[in-house]
């Protein structure tokens, strides 16, 4: 499949050191277009809609902000929001997003050292944008990877 120039350019910016130090692809050896295509299939398999999941993540972020930087219980989940200095551009060049990190895990795992992407979702404003606008969940091994199965488990019940 021939890539559109905009996609080719965006995929180059996903490499480590271009926009962020670790990049967006983790240790995933699949090309980004394959990651997107396979995650779209996974979303369909779990009955998830990209826009609805992005809305739910935004709502969780807003709930987490009430914890003022400390973890806060939101229903069955424990949510914590953290902020960093500055902004990150989308690799596709369609927006700048505040640097932050929201972590979401099941409340009963509060005392457990969770692993990003396995039993804890970690996302930022940029992750929500990438999901909503580009159907891009990031590569496996990226700490900000939004694994469809984990999304279904933690966020599935919150979709409108």
């Amino acid at each position, binding site marked *: 499949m021939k890539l559109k120039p905009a996609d080719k350019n965006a995929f180059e910016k996903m490499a480590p050191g271009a926009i962020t130090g670790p990049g967006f692809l983790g240790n995933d050896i699949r090309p980004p277009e394959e990651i997107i295509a396979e995650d779209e299939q996974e979303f369909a398999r779990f009955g998830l809609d990209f826009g609805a999941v992005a809305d739910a993540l935004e709502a969780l972020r807003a709930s987490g902000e009430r914890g003022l930087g*400390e973890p806060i219980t939101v229903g069955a989940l424990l949510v914590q929001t953290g902020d960093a200095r500055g902004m990150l551009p989308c690799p596709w060049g369609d927006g700048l997003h505040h640097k932050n*990190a929201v972590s979401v895990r099941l409340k009963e795992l509060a005392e457990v050292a969770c692993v990003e992407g396995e039993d804890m979702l970690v996302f930022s404003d940029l992750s929500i944008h990438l999901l909503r606008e580009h159907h891009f969940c990031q590569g496996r091994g990226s700490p900000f990877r939004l694994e469809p199965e984990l999304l279904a488990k933690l966020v599935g019940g919150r979709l409108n």
Partner: protein
Amino acid sequence: MNPILTGPLAVAGISTILALLISILDKLLNNYGQLDVTINGKKTLNVRGGSPLLGTLAAEGIFVPSACGGRGSCGACKCKVLTDVGPHLPTETPYMSPDEISRNVRLACQVKVRKNLEIELPEELFSVKKFSSRVESIRDLTYDIKEVLLALEGQEIEFQAGQYVQLVVPPYGEVAESVQRAYSMSSRPSDKKHVELLIRLVPGGIATTWVHKYLSQGQQVEVVGAFGEFHIHDTPAAMICVAGGSGMAPFKSMLYHMNETGAFPEKEIWYFFGARSLRDMFYLDEMRELSARWPRFHFVAALSEPKPEDNWTGETGLITDVLDRYLQSKVDAGKGLEGYLCGSPGMINACINVMKKNGMGEDKIYFDKFA
């Protein structure tokens, strides 16, 4: 020659020649030679041209704060460029107010030194230094906050309680480039041979992951500092300090400095510290011991979601709710009140709202925002 090999070999040969040609042209066309960078009309540096201003200044021992390693994603390295270096780049404008754009404030990481430049920098940056240090101790304060004590090697640091340093994180694991991140110092200014930092693990965070998973006792570490405007104001007004998590750092420095030196003797000090449950709380004994022997220091710890097994008898609720209750009923505003805040933008904004609601002037609320 085998025709199957001829094609690839020809392509490889042409590619090599083109790469060499590009490299030679780059050296010829982008050779700006030695140039002058004049700072504040007083100090002139003769530098090699062609590189971003941020790195050029750092090579000369002038460290402009930067949290992203020059990628243009933190907006911290602002400086005024008096020479015309062209319009602001799209990578700069998101971090600039209209006023800053009109005054030609630029991001030092985005401006390349291609001609002689005149720039303006805050004078205090001239005293900023890079320090070599060794990790003297590193210990867990909670499951996600570490206390890191760095012993400086052959140098002493001068700073005001409340200021921060930039920790230089070397390449590690999948992270191929060095980055710097800002952390408030929790050590006392009188201890010039050490820098103590409190660092909370941020999921996905480059620097905090390095500290929590890679850094160990005895390891060599570089820090750059001291930076920042957050400090104790010399007035008789009571200090209302609010923090959570690693926001403890500048207050630990301020409190022990004031207690040790007797500075600002008229100030009453109220310190509100919030955590979710007892496992997120730290320095509880130290702060209680300090308040027991220092009558003008009042420590109020609060848990937002205490567990039954915590047996917590202290304040409960979000720290903003506790702050509100105390400002209404317990804090004496007779000599005036000053707010001192350290934390996330959300926490700071929420505290400012509570303080304003209780009659505190916004111009008397000082903060160190993690953003």
